[in-house]
């Protein structure tokens, strides 16, 4: 049996390492601990979770649908809108992720009541917010 030489192993490892950030497509499949600042009222923390299939959960709000910008092709810039079935109050989120693995994110939020927020977040797999759904954005 032919042995694989060290240079080949190193080369393969390097290639996988370089490809990993592109394959990850952040924020797909990631969770972010986020600090949210409103125009009135102090900052609060929240947790934004993005599934790879386009669902976003904001702990202090609920479910949204999310896509990348530029017809879902611009990795790293995303938008999120209320899902079908969401009657009454809703959120719009637009943000960007930074870092090779999408380690940080920042963006803007507008609500259907006309309130605006800005947020900054970091990648945290087990993030937790400090507000219950429905308490944070109204």
């Amino acid at each position, binding site marked *: 049996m032919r042995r694989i030489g060290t240079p080949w192993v190193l080369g393969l490892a390097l290639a996988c390492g370089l490809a990993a950030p592109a394959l990850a497509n952040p924020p797909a499949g990631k969770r972010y601990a986020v600090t949210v600042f409103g125009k009135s009222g102090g900052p609060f923390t929240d947790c934004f979770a993005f599934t790879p299939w386009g669902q976003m959960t904001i702990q202090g709000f609920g479910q949204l649908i999310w896509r990348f910008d530029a017809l*879902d092709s611009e990795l790293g810039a995303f938008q999120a809108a209320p899902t079908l079935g969401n009657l009454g109050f809703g959120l719009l989120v637009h943000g960007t992720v930074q870092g090779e693995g999408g380690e940080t994110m920042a963006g803007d939020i507008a609500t259907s009541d006309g309130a605006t927020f800005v947020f900054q977040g970091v990648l945290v797999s087990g993030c937790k917010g400090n507000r219950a759904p429905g308490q944070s954005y109204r």
Partner: protein
Amino acid sequence: MTTIRLVLLACSLLGLAGLPAHAADTASPRGKGYLAHVYGSDGQDFLACFFFARNGQLLVEHYGPVLYRFDALDDQTNAFQALNATGQVDDFWLTFHGNVGGDQGRTLTANGLSSYGTTFILQGRLDRTCKPQQPTSRSAGASPWR
């Protein structure tokens, strides 16, 4: 002393030179209408007027009024976000995030997303024929946004 004066003069001139760029940064769509070419992820391709009323309402042709606010806690007037206002009677949502650019905000670029998951890109320019009286419709089936 002369050197300090020269430095101050140079800084003043540089500051003045920077003014036009700053003025361009503060362009706003408020009170303006734009004709935009819209491309949808569902293959649609259509024209639509967008009128940004001064009261924070954005009139979207073929859809109806939504509300808009600026980025950075409503302060960054060349970047906007828009969505349905609270109290709508159906569960369909249409949202936009975009920028105006050029001298006095003559151009508009934006991304859109509907609650069906359809994404849109918009490229537009200032168009004085896009006025608040533009006919809009939310009737089911008639809107290319749905």
